């Protein structure tokens, strides 16, 4: 049973691809305003889990309650509405629609949700200003630097005031300076009251999260300490 402040309650989620178990009986609860990191070696199922939690994918087994509702019982359209109004996404790269300007990229989910283009653009401008991108509002998505594009993506994830933001290695392609800027932006997410789940390989990112999860072979490792997180990061650096 989910508590009143639980944004997400997952129980025994299983996902298989071609008989291979990618997510293996994962249970997880995330509270409002909580900042959670999820680390693990490449291919351990982090992104698949993130997609299941974000209703982009469906579990083969287990149950997910998102804001008290089971996405499996919702229609495609209702899940789309949930993604639009309750969730925000930030991916590692190629986050933006290249033919749209930065402010149009940010405003798009709000325009789709409210039908008010002008108000959505104004809100996009405010968010871009908050993330230090006011001067880049009219730049097309394709010309923005990786760091700028990621901050635009964070602004876009926040525009509909979501209950939860799911970020898949948002600093994975960035240098340390750009990473810091994006992390500051991500921290803003929690200040709005939204929960944040970050999939990352970066221990510095994980260190900024109140709760750190580690995934191994599709399973969440219980009671992950910061040292375990650093082990994962070291393993990732070795692989990469």
């Amino acid at each position, binding site marked *: 049973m989910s508590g009143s402040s639980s944004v997400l309650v997952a129980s025994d989620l299983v996902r298989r691809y071609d008989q291979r178990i990618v997510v293996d009986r994962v249970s997880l609860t995330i509270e409002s305003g909580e900042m959670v990191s999820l680390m693990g070696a490449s291919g351990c199922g982090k992104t698949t889990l993130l997609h299941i939690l974000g209703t982009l*994918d469906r579990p083969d087994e287990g149950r997910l309650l998102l804001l008290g509702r089971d996405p499996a019982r919702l229609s495609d*359209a209702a899940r789309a509405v949930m993604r639009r109004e309750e969730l925000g996404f930030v991916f590692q790269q190629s986050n933006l629609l290249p033919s749209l300007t930065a402010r149009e990229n940010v405003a798009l989910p709000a325009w789709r949700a409210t039908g008010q283009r002008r108000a959505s653009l104004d809100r996009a401008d405010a968010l871009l200003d908050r993330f230090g991108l006011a001067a880049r509002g009219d730049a097309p998505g394709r010309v923005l630097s990786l760091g700028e594009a990621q901050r635009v993506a964070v602004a876009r994830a926040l525009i509909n005031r979501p209950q939860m933001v799911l970020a898949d290695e948002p600093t994975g392609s960035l240098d340390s300076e750009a990473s810091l800027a994006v992390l500051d932006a991500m921290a803003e997410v929690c200040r709005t009251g939204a929960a944040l789940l970050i999939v990352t390989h970066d221990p510095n990112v994980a260190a900024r999260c109140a709760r750190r999860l580690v995934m191994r072979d599709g399973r969440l490792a219980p009671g992950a300490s910061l040292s375990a997180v650093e082990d994962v990061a070291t393993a990732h650096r070795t692989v990469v």
Partner: protein
Amino acid sequence: MIEWTNPVGRWVERELLLRDLAMRIGVSFFLASRALRESLLSTGLLILAVAVAIGFEVPSAANLQGYRGELLAQSLDDGFGDVRVRPGRGVVLHDAEALSARLAKVPGVLEATPVLAAPASVRGHGHDTSVTLFGVDPLALHHPYRVIAGQTLRESRDEVLLGASIAERSGLTVGDQVELRVLLSTYPRLVLDDGGYGVYTLTVRGLVGFGASNGAFVSRSFLAGEMGDDDLASAVLVHVRDHMAAPAIVPAVAAAAPGAQVRAWMDDSRYLHSSVRAVETLAGASWLMGVLAVGIPVLALLYISTLNRRRQIGLLTAMGFTRVDLFVTFLLQALILGAAGVAVGGLVAVALVRYLIAHPIFDWQSFVVRPVLTVHDLVRTAVAILGTVLIAGSYPAWRAARLDPSRILRGIE
């Protein structure tokens, strides 16, 4: 049981639905137009494909329509009518005037005119040419010829209209005198016995073209009189408004001409009928080629565009765009391309048609093929091409809507 309804509530609900629909279409239109700007080469090629198809299909169809119209006009209006009435027995009809008057009263008949035919030869400038000589009513609205030089026939015993081909072969022109030798007997087997020829010197009043270019025409009253019966005819030519409806009127015409042989032009002139059908088949094939010329590249290029934009589709899904949104966006993309292509192609088509009207592709004697283009034809072709674009665009749109966002975003698809 009484069901209470709330009309205001229903109205508000409908308004909200319409607003939501308009908003969704607005967002999709914005995304579609921006996506088209993303790849100007693909967009340009697609618009060009549609424009070329309509730009050439419309003039081609208009030319074929013009050819078909001219063929029917020359062969039926200025030819031998839509329904031909001939003697059931023997070679001539007696009381042709009375029969024509009866036939003219048949509903749907514009005019019924008797014609009398006789074998003849024309001598001019030392050349002898065999012709079929027709006696026609000069005052009728319809004649089995179209005058291309000089003047039309009048009631006279001294004048003849000569086929343009005969005139050309014999070096004759309007105003020249010719000697006409006419077999006056209506019973050819008696020719050797009675030597029934009439020899007349006549002035060429005009030249006639196309189907009549190997014939000669005089007043029927003159020719019939020379044959000894003022009201003789070889056939009565019946004209109706709609050429293609000629078979439908045959029973009524037959009822008004008991004992006569009555045939619609389709049965009487297989060559003409085959020609018209061939033109219609060519027009259909041309239309189909136009449709394929649009459909295949649109399908291929939009499909490629869909594949290239998979990542964007994944992002839009993550942002909360529904499958319907994605389908509409990609379909609108096709619609914008189609509309732009039709607009450009339509202008090209109209310009080409105007050029071809001024410079016909076929102009021989009086037979001139000028493209026939009506607003209805243009709109019909534009709608057909636009429909083809939408159908061709709907598969890539459907594919875009069915893509698995999770697989796309992980780079698996």
